[in-house]
């Protein structure tokens, strides 16, 4: 084995209380390390990460003129930075430190002391040999553009935008629908407080519109994202609204004046339960209060023949503009918060629930509109034939906790099903049956809410609904809609129950947006198994992504209720703020780099980079790595067919020396 020349190495093994020293003889390993080439001081210490432990490093660097440090302790994820900082304070390059993980990779997973002592010696030897070849490295700094982009104008995006804007940052809030508000705007009351969703949401929507630091672009979509942390260039497409936002005063007279005297087209906001005109506003409190024209429905835009009564009434304001074209805006932002929300589970995917087949089977979101005072029925819960239902069933977990559909619990359905049970009972005095698998009421005030509603005289049937079918196959002569029978095994009494109801409500779960995969690609982030966006760490970095500078808020990351969504939006905003206020971003130097003279320009590395950090430079006919995007994963380094990509901190010599050290026993 080659020696370590004149390099002077200090070796330290941590007891970590009894985590490490409880199994292996740390003094023996320190003694062994002292015999390795270049090691001039080898010590064991109770807690290397403590202040005295770090002081020990610093003092030894001075006393022994140490040039390299090896610390055998826990995972580098925990304390690599600690020891690098200590080395830096001691006056040597922080990247001259190598850690040996003898805890997570050692004493925590082994119980044979003798075996583990031998393994620790191998690992220590590998690190001592490796650290010899370490090169001094420097962190580079990238400036951060202070503006921020928030994608999605639901409650998450709204809350994050207001938080950032209140802190003095300029926010671009991009929403693909004609108004902000998201799903929350469609809800009637919210659990567990039963306060009116609109009453708490609309003031925040108005505040967004009025805020001087927020540029609100509704009816707009992100088209392209380039760049990297602190320096994103984003192209936003502003779809043609055909009503000029700057000129419109929100009088809504154009809608009134439309040649269509009645609504003719399904109203998306009301889940198709009412009709709207080609020129419309989703709901009265929409922000911005500017109508939008559907070009596929408007007679002028579709056929070119219309009396243009809307233009006439708008008169001098001239806000209606049939010539409007989509507009592309390019913006520079330092951070991005994704708050793109969820899609409710499509109930037609489970045919035996009869949604779309029986007119009295509704989804929960449809019910939200039905019970809402500004909804299609003015808040009255009525069947399509106009009757008030006398018996209503609510099915929990529709599409959730089901291996055929979505495996996850959608977290909000139990509580919103209880809420709907309360609201429907309050409005109709109907007999209510809730079919549930397990009643899940975690979170503040949720169990109390459950207890309150369940004492209101509703029937809670524990059982998954197996079938829904008509009570009678004969058509009613009076135009009435027949009852459906809900069949389920009541697992508490061990009986099959068949309950005829007038109305069936399906509590559909939450799932990722249909285009979540496209969004994921565009922003270069990852998705979890179910397709929700993946956070960097489920506990310790829940709003960060693996792409620096891009944060997550709300249900795009996973099902959650409004309080959690708002809390997460606040967290995402403060992460983004912390980034922006720092002004610069430090890049870890363990990046890959291309040796330009050696690169043959074969392009093999380019599609492999998970961070799209590599580009082909036509003028040089060579590949080039953007250091700010590189995460040091090493994929390109390993794959470069001509060995022309190298990586700081993972140079061939470092790796080969480490392997040699590890296998020296053989």
């Amino acid at each position, binding site marked *: 084995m080659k020696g370590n020349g004149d390099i002077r190495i200090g070796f330290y093994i941590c007891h970590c209380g009894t985590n490490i020293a409880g199994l292996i003889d740390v003094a023996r390993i320190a003694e062994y390390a002292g015999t390795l080439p270049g090691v001039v001081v080898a010590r064991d210490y109770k807690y290397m990460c403590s202040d005295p432990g770090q002081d020990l490093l610093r003092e030894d660097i001075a006393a022994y003129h140490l040039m390299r440090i090896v610390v055998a302790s826990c995972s580098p994820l925990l304390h690599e930075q600690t020891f690098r900082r200590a080395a830096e304070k001691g006056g040597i390059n922080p990247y001259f430190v190598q850690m040996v993980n003898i805890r997570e990779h050692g004493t925590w997973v082994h119980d044979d002391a*003798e*075996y583990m002592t*031998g*393994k620790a010696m191998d690992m220590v030897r590998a690190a001592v040999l490796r650290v010899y070849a370490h090169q001094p490295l420097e962190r580079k700094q990238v400036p951060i553009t202070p503006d921020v982009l928030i994608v999605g104008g639901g409650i998450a995006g709204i809350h994050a935008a207001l938080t950032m804007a209140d802190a003095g940052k300029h926010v671009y809030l991009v929403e693909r629908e004609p108004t902000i508000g998201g799903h929350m705007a469609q809800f009637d009351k919210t659990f567990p407080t039963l306060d009116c969703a609109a009453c708490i949401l609309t003031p925040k929507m108005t505040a967004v519109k009025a805020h001087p630091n927020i540029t609100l672009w509704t009816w707009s979509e992100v088209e392209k994202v380039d760049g990297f942390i602190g320096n994103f260039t984003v192209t936003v497409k502003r779809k043609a609204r055909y009503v000029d936002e700057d000129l419109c005063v929100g009088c809504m007279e154009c809608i009134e004046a439309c040649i269509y005297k009645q609504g003719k087209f399904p109203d998306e906001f009301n889940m198709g339960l009412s009709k709207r005109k080609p020129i419309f506003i989703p709901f009265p409190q929409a922000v911005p209060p500017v109508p939008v024209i559907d070009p596929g429905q408007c007679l002028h835009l579709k056929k070119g023949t219309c009396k243009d009564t809307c233009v006439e009434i708008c008169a001098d304001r001239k806000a209606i503009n049939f010539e409007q074209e989509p507009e592309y805006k390019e913006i520079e932002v330092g951070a991005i918060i994704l708050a793109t929300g969820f899609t409710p589970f499509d109930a037609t995917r489970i045919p035996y629930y009869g949604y779309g087949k029986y007119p009295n089977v509704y989804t929960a979101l449809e019910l939200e509109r039905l019970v809402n005072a500004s909804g299609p029925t003015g808040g009255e819960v009525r069947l399509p034939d106009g009757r008030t239902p006398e018996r209503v069933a609510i099915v929990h977990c529709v599409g959730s906790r089901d291996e055929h559909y979505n495996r996850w619990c959608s977290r909000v359905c139990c509580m919103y099903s209880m809420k709907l049970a309360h609201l429907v009972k309050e409005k109709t005095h109907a007999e209510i049956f809730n079919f549930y698998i397990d009643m899940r009421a975690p979170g503040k005030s949720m169990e109390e809410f459950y207890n309150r509603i369940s004492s209101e005289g509703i029937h809670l049937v524990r059982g998954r609904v197996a079938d829904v079918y008509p009570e009678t196959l004969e058509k009613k002569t009076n135009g009435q809609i027949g009852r459906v029978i809900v069949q389920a095994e009541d697992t508490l009494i061990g009986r099959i129950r068949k309950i005829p109801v007038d109305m069936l409500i399906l509590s559909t779960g939450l799932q990722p947006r249909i285009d979540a995969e496209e969004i994921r690609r565009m922003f270069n982030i990852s998705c979890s198994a179910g397709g929700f966006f993946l956070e960097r760490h489920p506990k310790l970095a829940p709003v960060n992504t693996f792409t620096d500078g891009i944060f997550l808020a709300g249900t795009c990351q996973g099902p959650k209720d409004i309080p959690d969504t708002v809390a997460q939006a606040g967290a995402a905003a403060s992460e983004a703020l912390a980034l922006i206020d720092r002004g610069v971003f430090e890049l870890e130097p363990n990046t890959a780099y291309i040796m330009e*003279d*050696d*690169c*043959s*320009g*074969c*392009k*093999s590395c*380019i*599609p*492999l980079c998970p961070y799209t950090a590599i580009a*082909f430079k036509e003028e040089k*006919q060579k590949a080039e790595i953007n250091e700010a995007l590189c995460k040091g994963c090493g994929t390109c380094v*390993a*794959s*470069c*067919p*001509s*060995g*022309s990509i190298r990586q700081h901190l993972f140079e*061939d010599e470092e790796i080969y020396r480490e392997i040699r050290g590890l296998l020296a*026993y*053989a």
Partner: protein
Amino acid sequence: MSDKPKIGLYWCASCGGCEESVVDLAEDILDVVEAVDIIFWPVAMDFKRADVEAMDDRSITATLINGAVRTSEQEEMVRLLRRKSAVIIAYGSCAHLGGIPGMANQFDREQILRYVYEDAPTVVNDEKTRPATAHRFNGSEATLPVFHATVRALDQVIDVDYYIPGCAPTPALLKAAVEALLTGTLPPKGTVLAPDIALCDECPRKESKPEDLRIERFHRPHAVMADPDTCLLAQGIVCMGPATRGGCEALCVKGNMPCTGCFGPTSRVRDQGAKILSSLAASVAADEEADIISILSTIPDPIGTFYRYGLPGSLLRKLLSQSSWTGGTSHHA
């Protein structure tokens, strides 16, 4: 004998193509002969082993050895030439990397001998006679060299000063090497006397290589009509160009055939086959294991494709017979 530099040429396990490549210098060979004395060249001139043994140590300026080392005779000869030569140049893929004969390291000696002398369909050998290292006949003894267990590249047997790559090397590389030798402008010892950049750099089809190959299946060169202008990899034909040292003037690609890797890897690569494999495997247009396997199965002979010239010196090296496994017991147990 004159004072001109003395040059030797020798062949080991090779096909003779490298010898041909020397002749391919055409009229330039006259300049070479003018400048040097060729003192040993079994394929062309009548010198014997005893003549070499009689020379002073290091008296030969340089010896170019082609072919891999398989037999005891080859080993003895290269050791002798090493002693007698100031500079040893491994000439051609077989001496450089093990070459085509090196692919025999996929089999052990017994498998090879049994096939060649018993099982091959064209062999009639009911007595199962095999070559013996010594045989007495009519009172005299005839001997044959020992057939070693593996094929080795030249530098796995003796110390090598320089390498001229190629199967066979191009006349241009040979000429440049001889010039460097005569003018004393050789680079540091151990250098491969060819550019240290992959073939794509000089490939006339470079611009047509897409960033993402998305290979849906591989084609063998004889099975398709390859477009003469498009990157062969983009056509699903395994081209070793990205993982192979350039300097050959892309002759195969200009002949509408893929690079098979004869120049070996660049100096920065430890294992040429592993490198092209990790790069190509990432270009397979499938995500599911079954689809990946089905695409990769369109390469019928992976070792012959990716390790055609470099098996002996690669990380794979050779077949380890079952009996030589030591098993996976713990070293600390």
